[in-house]
C-alpha cells in the first residue's frame, strides 16, 4: 500500500528512480512510524528509511522536537561529520505520506544486546566509549545559528518537570522522593554553556558496525541545554544491558568517554555528569510509571507496556546504588 505513495514520491525527487520495493514497517507507535524500503534505480538499489507521523498525527507531543526538526538536525550532523544518515527528502503534502522525512539507510546494528554480545562487534566494543565521547563533542559543537527552533531546558526546570510527572502518577515511592531531594540539593544551576543536547543518546539509539559508531538516531528529544546531560544519560545503568561495570552503554569507562570528549577539544564537568546520570535514572523510572498509567487507562493495553511498569524497581535499585551505596 505504502509502496505506491513512496514510488510516486521518490520519482519526484530522486533523479532516475523508477519506484520502490521491499517496504516493511520497522517500528511504530500510534503517532510515529519507521519504514525501510529500497529505491529502484538504474545504478542499483538505494537503501532508505522513512520516518513519519501518519496523516492526522501531525502534532508533536510536548517534549518532542518534531520530525521536521529531527530531519534538520540529522542533516546538520551529517554535514558536520557527526555520524548520521543523510536526509534525502523532507515530506511535502503532495507525497501523501503524512509528515516526516526519508533518509539514507545506514547498515549496522541498533539492538543493544547484540552489540554487547555478538562476535561481529568484539573489535569495536573496546573503542566505543572513547568514540562516543568524540561523537558527543561534535554534536555539542553543531552551529547554533543553524539549529531549528528547540525548547530550552536546564537542570532546575527538568527537576520541576519530573517532579510534576511523578506526582501526577500518584505512586508514592520513597526512593524516587529521595532522588528528587538529592537532585534539588545538587542542582548545578544554569550551565556555563548552552549547546544542542541530543536528549536520548544511548546504546539502542546508535547504529553500530564492526568499525564503531555509524549513525546517531532518534533526535526527537533534542533541545538546548547543558551538554553534560548527554554524557550523564549515556551512562544510566538501564542502557548498560547487564554490563554494569562499564558505565558507557556497557562498552567502557567514564574515563574513556571523558578522554574522547576532551580529545575533541571540549571540557567535561564530572559533577554535572553525575547529576545528569541520577536525573536520567529517575527519568527512566518515571517513564516506566507513565507506561503503567497508559496501560491502566486504556490507550495501550498491551502486556509489554504492563511489564515495563514493573521495571521501575530496576531504577530504584540503581538510584540506591548511586545515592546510598553499600559496602562490600
Amino acid at each position, binding site marked *: 500500500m505504502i509502496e505506491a505513495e513512496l514510488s510516486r514520491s521518490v520519482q519526484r525527487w530522486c533523479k532516475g528512480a523508477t519506484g520502490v520495493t521491499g517496504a516493511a514497517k520497522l517500528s511504530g507507535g500510534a503517532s510515529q512510524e519507521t519504514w525501510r524500503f529500497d529505491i529502484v534505480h538504474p545504478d542499483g538499489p538505494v537503501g532508505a528509511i522513512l520516518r513519519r507521523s501518519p496523516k492526522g498525527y501531525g502534532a508533536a507531543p510536548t517534549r518532542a522536537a518534531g520530525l521536521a526538526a529531527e530531519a534538520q538536525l540529522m542533516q546538520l550532523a551529517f554535514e558536520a561529520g557527526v555520524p548520521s544518515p543523510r536526509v534525502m527528502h523532507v515530506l511535502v503534502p503532495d507525497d501523501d505520506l503524512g509528515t516526516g522525512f526519508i533518509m539514507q539507510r545506514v547498515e549496522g546494528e541498533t539492538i543493544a544486546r547484540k552489540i554487547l554480545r555478538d562476535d561481529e562487534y568484539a573489535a569495536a566494543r573496546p573503542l566505543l566509549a572513547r568514540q562516543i565521547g568524540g561523537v558527543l563533542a561534535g554534536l555539542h559543537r553543531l552551529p547554533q545559528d543553524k539549529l531549528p527552533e528547540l525548547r530550552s531546558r536546564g537542570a532546575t526546570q527538568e527537576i520541576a518537570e519530573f517532579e510534576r510527572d511523578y506526582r501526577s502518577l500518584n505512586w508514592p515511592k*520513597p526512593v524516587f522522593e529521595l532522588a528528587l*531531594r538529592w537532585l534539588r540539593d545538587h542542582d548545578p544551576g544554569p550551565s556555563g554553556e548552552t549547546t544542542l543536547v541530543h536528549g536520548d543518546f544511548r546504546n539502542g539509539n546508535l547504529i553500530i558496525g564492526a568499525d564503531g559508531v555509524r549513525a546517531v538516531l532518534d533526535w526527537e528529544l533534542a533541545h538546548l541545554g547543558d551538554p553534560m546531560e548527554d554524557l550523564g544519560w549515556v551512562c544510566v545503568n538501564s542502557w548498560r544491558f547487564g554490563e554494569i561495570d562499564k558505565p558507557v552503554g556497557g562498552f567502557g569507562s567514564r574515563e574513556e568517554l571523558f578522554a574522547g570528549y576532551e580529545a575533541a577539544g571540549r571540557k567535561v564537568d564530572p559533577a554535572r555528569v553525575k547529576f545528569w546520570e541520577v536525573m536520567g535514572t529517575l527519568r527512566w523510572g518515571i517513564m516506566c510509571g507513565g507506561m503503567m498509567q497508559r496501560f491502566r487507562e486504556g490507550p495501550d493495553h498491551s502486556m509489554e507496556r504492563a*511489564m515495563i511498569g514493573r521495571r521501575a524497581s530496576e531504577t530504584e535499585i540503581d538510584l540506591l546504588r548511586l545515592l546510598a551505596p*553499600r559496602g562490600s
Partner: protein
Amino acid sequence: MQDEPTPIELTKSVADFLRGDIAPLISGHQAFKLRVAINILDLVTRQLTQEEGSDAKEAERLRALLGIDGSVTELNRALAERIAKGEVDLATPGLAEHLWATTMDKLAVDQPNYASYKRELGRNP
C-alpha cells in the same frame, strides 16, 4: 477458605504449559508476545509466593521508622511525604537499610535476573 490447588500452583501450571507445550510451536512476533506472557505469569507466581512475608517485614520496619501504624500502602505514602519534606533523609537511622531491604524484595519479584540486583544479592548488607 478456598479450596486447593492454590493460586500459586494454578498460575504456575499455566506458565509451565505455555512454556513447555506452546512456545515450541510458534515463532516471530507471537513468540515474543508469548515470552512476555510467560514472564508475567512467572512474576505473578513469585509475587504470590513472596508478597505476604515481605509486606509484613516492610510494614514492621516502616512502623519503627515512622512511629505510626497503618497499612503498608499508607505507611509508604507517609514515608514518601516525610522524605519530600526533608524530615527524613539518609542520615536518619534505619532509612537506608529500610529502602535497601524493600527494594531488594521488589527486585526478587520484578526482575530477579537484573544485574544490579544479582550484584547486591552477593553482598553482605
